[in-house]
């Protein structure tokens, strides 16, 4: 078993700022290079089936969901083994244990979990766009505990299925996972990125100056990456929507959700929303 605890997990419910953070991170770790949104170096994607195949030697497309789940920790062991230093791995799954009681992300290679949280009212708007579905269906989905991603978002061939669960379950699963977790609010990254991301970077033990972090933020500004997506597309975008990066705003639900829709989300997720002042 690998004993090296070198994986920093970038965990989030979809549309909570995870991808943007990866772009920022790529800018920070590769200061000499221009940002290319289709080459996010130094970050892995836990549902990348090619990574699964490298890690296990098996064809993901021939395995059933329970088999994939029981073998997924091999991906973490593989990444941890091939990377000598700290490495970042994006995950949209809720934290859970498989039928043998093994966690989906192993403790022995985990350094820390960065958990990105966003107001579910804004997620509903953004996720509906991402899935190309109407908001009411997405609100239902955000409240269902058996939710699987990837099989429905147009990228069946490129992603492994992920057990996401409801939004509330997702948040709770990570907070009670037993891993060390730093919670990062989307709204804080949006409102004062320098201050809030500097804190995170320092907590990870990196020695970047504020000026270096500022430069990385400039390179990864939402306007710039949206512009780049327009020019060259984004490989992680579902095929049936126009753009992955949409508005990147806070409180857009105020103009895009009906009162009834707001009430439904608030009813489903009252406890967690209250806990995080949403």
């Amino acid at each position: 078993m690998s004993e090296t605890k070198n994986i920093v997990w970038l965990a989030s419910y979809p549309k909570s700022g995870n991808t943007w953070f990866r772009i920022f991170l790529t800018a920070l770790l590769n200061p000499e290079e221009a940002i290319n949104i289709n080459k996010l170096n130094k970050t892995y994607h836990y549902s990348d089936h090619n990574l699964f195949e490298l890690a296990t030697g098996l064809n993901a497309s021939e395995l059933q969901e329970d088999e994939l789940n029981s073998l997924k920790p091999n991906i973490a062991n593989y990444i941890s083994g091939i990377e000598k230093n700290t490495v970042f791995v994006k995950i949209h799954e809720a934290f859970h244990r498989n039928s043998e009681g093994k966690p989906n992300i192993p403790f022995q290679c985990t350094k820390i979990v960065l958990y990105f949280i966003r107001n579910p009212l804004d997620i509903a708007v953004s996720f509906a766009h991402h899935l190309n579905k109407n908001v009411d269906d997405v609100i239902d989905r955000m409240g269902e505990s058996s939710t699987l991603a990837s099989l429905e978002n147009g990228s069946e061939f490129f992603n492994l299925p992920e057990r996401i669960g409801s939004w509330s379950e997702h948040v709770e699963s990570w907070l009670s996972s037993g891993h060390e977790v730093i919670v990062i609010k989307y709204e804080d990254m949006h409102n004062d990125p320098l201050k809030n991301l500097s804190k995170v970077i320092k907590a990870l033990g990196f020695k970047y100056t504020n000026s270096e972090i500022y430069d990385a933020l400039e390179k990864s500004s939402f306007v710039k990456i949206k512009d780049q997506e327009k020019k060259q597309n984004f490989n992680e975008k579902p095929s049936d929507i126009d753009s992955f990066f949409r508005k990147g705003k806070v409180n857009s639900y105020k103009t895009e959700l009906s009162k009834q829709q707001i009430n439904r989300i608030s009813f489903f997720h009252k406890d967690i929303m209250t806990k995080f002042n949403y």
Partner: protein
Amino acid sequence: MKTDFKYSYNVYSLNIYSEIELVGFTESNFPKETAMVYVLRGKAPKSLDGDVIDTVVQSSKNQVLFRLPGHGNVLIKNGTHIIIDHQPSIDWSLIRNLIKNKCIAAIMHQRSWGVLHGSAIKSKDKAVLFLGRSGAGKSTTTAALTARGYDFISDDLCVIKNQEGICMLQPAYPSLRLWENTFDLLGDAKKFTKEKKIRPNINKYYVKPKAAFHNKQLEISHIYILAEQYTEELRLEKVNGIESLKALLEFTYAKGQLSGLGGFDTQFKLFSLLLKTIKVKKVLRPLGQDSDRFQNLISLIENDFLDE
């Protein structure tokens, strides 16, 4: 050696005796003394020497071991034996698929044959290969070309053997595997026979093209790489020199097995030889496919290999 094997096949120019049925493989009655590979139930080790990580696949010189929790272990050794040490809860559909691709690939690696992750058709008495990662569209592209009348040669694995200085593609067996939702892209459904699912809960099917199956080894003329790099316009891009060698090494099938087997040198030499005589091109395409766009892609590739 036990000789009462119930099944005998010829795939990739290998005579195979098997205790278990390998649906889709071409059945063959060959003289006993010409058997080259044996698939049998037996004892496999729990781990290979020198292994320290709890991995699914392990390899050492002349041995590859798959360890599948709940199913059992499968040992592939010396380029001749695939030994299944199974548990009572084994799912045979999983093991059959594993034997047909990853275990056969291990046999090839152990025999120092080249194995690329790709599919192939015949044009002008030569083989045209389509390489790509899983999900890139290799099988769909190949199926669409068989619907246009090209003979089918291989799906998923392209096995290459150096025959007196010429790299020859070995014929597989007349069966493709396609996701259910790719059938709409292929045009005329009458040009295929949809058979059973590869596994009960997976929407991927064995498909038999109506086009002829070419069952002799062939020289290779073209290699197209179905890139996961999306562009505004559909186009082909030449891949030259060291980049083409890198690409072939990148698309070596089950290359994780090679670290223990020590087979990188063999692949390197074989692909260097292959690249002396063939052209490699990357297929760049926009994200998202519908039937019209897909057929345009097929026409672009077809015109290209017919022109040269």
